[in-house]
């Protein structure tokens, strides 16, 4: 079964203070944190950031191993940019011999700091999705985008699209599985051949899948209409987002920490 391997949004249930915080707080803080991480350049501030992010992971109760696994897909980018830094930064060479001549101390330090910062950005971003259910995340995004309606951002529509996509991912995965089995029963081969051949063998799966997705979309639109859906205006929500003590605590902690970092980085 394909659908058992994929857990959408990678939410990990828990009851930590980070789990309990409002999605809006978490979204804004993780965005702000990404900017802050890029602003920090000195060795010590990067080190302190690392400690802070690791502590946040520990508090959230998300297994550290799981968090580090999230780095895997982006490992290539991290390694590549580190190498680029190592070889392009000018400064004192590590040694006079040929291969080491091109590597500088400054480059090594730059590469280290950069990779750590990239890793931190990914970890703090995934901490958001680890501790927030996709539904709450969607709600949070809708609420945050709401003020932008004035300049024509379709906040409600975007959120509704995300939420319907989330709703239908398991349904479509199930359907893909069913179609693949049906095609395999008629002799289709998905597992052998080179990459191009395998991609080609997916065409008979994708065509019926698309046709059915369109039919589903039409059915769903009719069903939504018959249940009085008429866009976002005048619509209320069952689930109300509320800021609590958890939010205040988290915001204050981050603010104090960031202030300390900024002073260290720019005043000293």
């Amino acid at each position, binding site marked *: 079964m394909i659908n058992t391997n994929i857990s959408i949004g990678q939410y990990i249930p828990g009851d930590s203070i980070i789990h309990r915080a409002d999605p809006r707080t978490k979204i804004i803080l993780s965005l702000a944190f990404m900017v802050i991480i890029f602003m920090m350049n000195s060795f010590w501030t990067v080190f302190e950031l690392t400690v802070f992010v690791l502590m946040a992971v520990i508090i959230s109760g998300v297994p550290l191993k799981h968090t580090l696994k999230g780095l895997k897909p982006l490992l290539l980018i991290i390694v590549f940019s580190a190498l680029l830094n190592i070889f392009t930064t000018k400064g004192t060479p590590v040694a006079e011999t040929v291969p080491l001549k091109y590597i500088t101390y400054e480059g090594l330090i730059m590469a280290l700091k950069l990779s750590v910062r990239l890793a931190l950005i990914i970890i703090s971003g995934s901490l958001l999705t680890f501790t927030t259910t996709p539904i709450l995340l969607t709600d949070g995004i809708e609420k945050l985008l709401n003020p932008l309606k004035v300049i024509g951002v379709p906040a409600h529509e975007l959120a509704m699209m995300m939420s319907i996509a989330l709703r239908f991912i398991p349904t479509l995965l199930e359907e893909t599985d069913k179609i693949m089995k049906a095609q395999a029963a008629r002799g289709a081969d998905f597992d052998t051949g080179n990459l191009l051949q395998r991609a080609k063998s997916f065409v008979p799966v994708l065509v019926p899948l698309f046709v059915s997705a369109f039919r*589903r979309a039409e059915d769903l639109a009719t069903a939504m209409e*018959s*249940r009085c859906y008429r866009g976002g205006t005048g619509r209320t*929500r*069952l689930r109300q987002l509320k800021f609590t003590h958890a939010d205040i605590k988290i915001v204050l902690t981050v603010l104090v920490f960031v202030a300390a970092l900024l002073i260290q980085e720019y005043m000293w």
Partner: protein
Amino acid sequence: MSLDKSIIEVKDVSFVYKSSNADRPDVTALSDMNLSIREGEFLAVLGRNGSGKSTLAKLMNALFLPTSGTIIVNGLDTTNEELLWDIRSSTGMVFQNPDNQIVGNVVEEDVAFGPENLGIPPEEIRIRVDTALETIGMTEFKEYAPHRLSGGQKQRVAIAGILAMKPKCIVLDEATAMLDPIGRKEVMRILRKLNTEEGITIVHITHHMDEAGKADRVLVIDEGKRVIVGTPREVFSDVKRIKKLGLDVPQVTELMYELNKCGYNFPTDILTVEEAIACLKQSLPSGKEL
């Protein structure tokens, strides 16, 4: 609850699907349909594929507007666009495919979808959602993702979603067609319960004759025209005519019909197994057990 007041009034309604292709003719789905659905009744609608059943259902929910004639739902004319949301919240609709009508990511969120659209305050929505889930017996599943439910459970959630809008009437457009026997039974039980306990009018379009046999009245449509209306007994007793319309009669009714063909003389309007047993018992020589 008076059975005399009509909740849906269909007057001389015709509906034509306009063809977008000039080479193909327009298709008349309904012609000169007249029907009065009484408040609190359980009406089953039968008809072969393409007979116009689904079109009739969609007209009752103002998803389609009649080409000619009028439809009055709960005292409101469906052609009046200002009344659209009142009409749709007073007659809810359950569709055939359980997967394609659930909007929410969690059961309770889906049940709340209708009331949310109506702009009802959150506290009130909470009460309505909890009551609706209790009525259909799905309270323990309220945090479930819809794809983890069975077909019958999904259809019950869809019914709850309509209940939360506090409707007077529920129209089911072949809602049991994709369900297994257990799911069908679940849905029928809920429908009966809503009909008798809450006085909600049920219009149930179905292919299953045993379900139609349990209704108060049966409407048979063919080629867009009303053919027969009557109690299940009246309708199914004319086995020949029903078969001619491409439909079946409940299995026991058919059994008695076939026995009568062999020279027996049983009543023709038998709908349940119990009735059939009683009749067969009577025809046995006295003293013998069946």
